[in-house]
C-alpha cells in the first residue's frame, strides 16, 4: 500500500500540469480514535476540525481518463483534527494517615485526563466524477504527514506529552455542487491514520465547505 501511494505521489509530482488552480476550506466534525482511559468517566473522540487545500488541474494531456470520470488534479492541504478527550482515574500514592507520615504509602485513585489531537499536511491526486452539469463526486488518494500529540494530566496537573510524526495514507471522498461563475459547495469525508506513544487509529473529518477556482 505504501509503495502504491509513493508511486502515485511520485507520478503526480512529476506530471506536467495544469491550467487552473483552486482553493477550498472545509469546516468539519473530526474524530480521533484514541484509547480511552480505563476506567473512563467520559470519552469524547469528536471535536471540530477542518481542512484547507489548494489544487491545480492537470492539463488535458496529463489527465487519466477513468471512463466515468478522470484523475484531473493535484492537491496539497492541511488538515486539523480536534482534540479527543478522555477523563478517568489513575493511581497515585499517598500517606493515608497524616499523623503517621512514616507509614507505607497506599494507592488511591485520582482524577486523570488524556487528550489526543492530530494535524496533517497532505498531497494527493484528485479524481472527479460528474453526475449532472452541476453535481459531481470527487475522490482523493495520497499521503499525509501526520503529527499526533497525546497529553496527560493527573489531579489537574500536566504530567507530560508525546508527539510523533509519520507518513500515512490519505483518502478523501466528496460531493460537489457547482454554482457557475461563483463557487463550488463541497461535502467531504477525509480519512488518515494517527499513531503516537502506542496509541493508533483512524482520524477522520466529515465536513462542509466551499471551493473557489482561480
Amino acid at each position, binding site marked *: 500500500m505504501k509503495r502504491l501511494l509513493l508511486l502515485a505521489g511520485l507520478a503526480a509530482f512529476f506530471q506536467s500540469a495544469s*491550467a487552473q488552480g483552486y482553493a477550498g476550506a472545509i469546516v468539519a466534525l473530526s474524530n480521533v480514535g484514541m484509547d480511552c482511559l480505563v476506567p473512563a468517566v467520559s470519552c469524547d473522540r469528536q471535536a471540530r476540525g477542518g481542512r484547507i487545500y489548494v489544487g491545480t488541474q492537470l492539463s488535458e494531456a496529463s489527465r487519466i481518463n477513468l471512463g466515468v470520470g478522470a484523475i484531473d488534479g493535484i492537491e496539497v492541504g492541511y488538515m486539523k483534527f480536534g482534540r479527543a478527550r478522555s477523563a478517568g482515574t489513575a493511581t497515585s*500514592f499517598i500517606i493515608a494517615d497524616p499523623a503517621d507520615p512514616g507509614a507505607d504509602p497506599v494507592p488511591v485513585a485520582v482524577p486523570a485526563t488524556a487528550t489526543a489531537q492530530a494535524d496533517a499536511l497532505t498531497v494527493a491526486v484528485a479524481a472527479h466524477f460528474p453526475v449532472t452539469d452541476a453535481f459531481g463526486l470527487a475522490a482523493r488518494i495520497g499521503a499525509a504527514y501526520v503529527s499526533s500529540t497525546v497529553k496527560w494530566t493527573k*489531579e489537574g496537573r500536566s504530567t507530560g506529552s508525546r508527539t510523533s510524526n509519520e507518513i500515512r495514507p490519505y483518502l478523501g471522498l466528496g460531493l460537489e455542487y457547482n454554482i457557475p461563475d461563483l463557487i463550488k459547495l463541497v461535502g467531504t469525508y477525509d480519512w488518515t491514520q494517527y499513531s503516537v506513544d502506542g496509541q493508533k487509529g483512524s482520524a477522520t473529518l466529515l465536513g462542509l465547505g466551499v471551493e473557489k477556482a482561480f
Partner: protein
Amino acid sequence: MSVSGLSRLGVLMAMSAAALLLPTAQAQQSRESIFAKVEPSLRDRAFMRLNYIVANVKTSSSDARDVTGPVLNRGDIKEYLGPGTAYAADYAAGNTPYTKLSVSFTNGTQFLDERLNNGMELDANNGCETVRDGLGTPCGIKARSGAMVGTPAVSVGYFFNDEYTWFVEAFVLAAPLRVSVYGDGNNNLNGREIIQLKLLPPVAILGRYFGEAQARVRPFVGFGASYAMFFDTKATSTLNTYQGGRSPGDTSVSLKNAMGYGPFAGVKMQLDDDWHINLNIGKIRFKTEATLITRNTTITGDSEVLKAYGPAVQGAMQVGEELEVKDRATGADASTTTAVMCLLAKYRDGREGCNLGTFVRKQSTVLDNTMFMLSVGRRF
C-alpha cells in the same frame, strides 16, 4: 503576549508589508534602478519575500536526569554521619554544630538513614525508579516551551527552470525567536517559567510548484531543513532556587544546537507579473538536549524540590523533622533536613557553609514545530 494577539500581530505585519510592497510606479522605478544590472535570466528566476512566521511548538520532554549522581546517595548518612565516622567522634566531643542529631538508632542519623532508605525503596517500587539509589532530581521533572512564537523574516529564492516549478528558498534574515520554557510534570515547577532563550532557526526549502508558470494559483510541496541555534539561554531564579543554587546565577543552562527536517506545503497566488502572496505550512522537528549546571548547591528543609519526592520519602523526612535537632551555638530549633545536608557538606564533601557542590543534570527534548508562513514576494 497571548496566542491570538500574536497571530493578529503577524497578520497585521504581513498586511502592512503587503501594502508597502504593492507594485506602484515608484516601486517599478526602484526595481529598474536596483536590479537593472542583474543578469536578466537570473533576475527572472530569482525572487525575494518578506515573511511573517508563526511557529506552534509542541514539546516532548524526557524526565531530567542526574549526570553527576544524586545529591544524597543511598547510605550517605550512615557512611558519613554514622557510628565510627569523623562526625561521630566530633559529636561525642561536643564539636558538632547541632545537638541531638546523635548516631544512636532511636534518636539520630541511623534512624533517619533507615527511614529514608525504606522511603526510597517504596517510592522506587511505586514507579519512581530514579530514587532507588539516592535523592537527586525527582521523578517527572519535565519542560515545555511556550506554544506560539512569531518573527518576521526575509527570504530569497531561485527557480531552477523556465517552467518555474523546482525552486529553492532560503530564509536569510530573521529576528531571533524569544522562547520561554516552562516546567511540566506533576511537581511544583509545573507552569512556572524556568528558562529563557533565544532561537535562530535559518530554514532552507527545496520544493516544486504545480501548475503552469502563468497560473494565478499554484500549490507546492517541498522539503525543508533548519539548523536551530540556541543562544542567550538563562535559567530563571525559580529554576535556580529549585535546583538548590544558593546565589542568583548559580544555575546555568545550555542547549545543543540541532538540525531539523520536515515537509512543507503551500500555495503561491500571483498578483501580477512580478508580485505574489505566498502561504506555507511546514513541519520541522528538532531534537536537542539541555544541560543544567548548578554550583554551590544548598538544600534546606524549606527547599521546594523536597516536595516533589514521592510520599514515602516525604514521610521519612517528616518523621526526621520530629527529631528536635537544635543549633548548638544558638540553642534554637533547627530543621533536621537542613542539619543533615549541612553535615554531609562538611563530612562528605569537605565544604563549609552547607555547600554540597556542583551538580549536572541533562534533559532530552523534542520540539515539533508547525510553521505558518505568510509572505509577500516579488521577482528580482
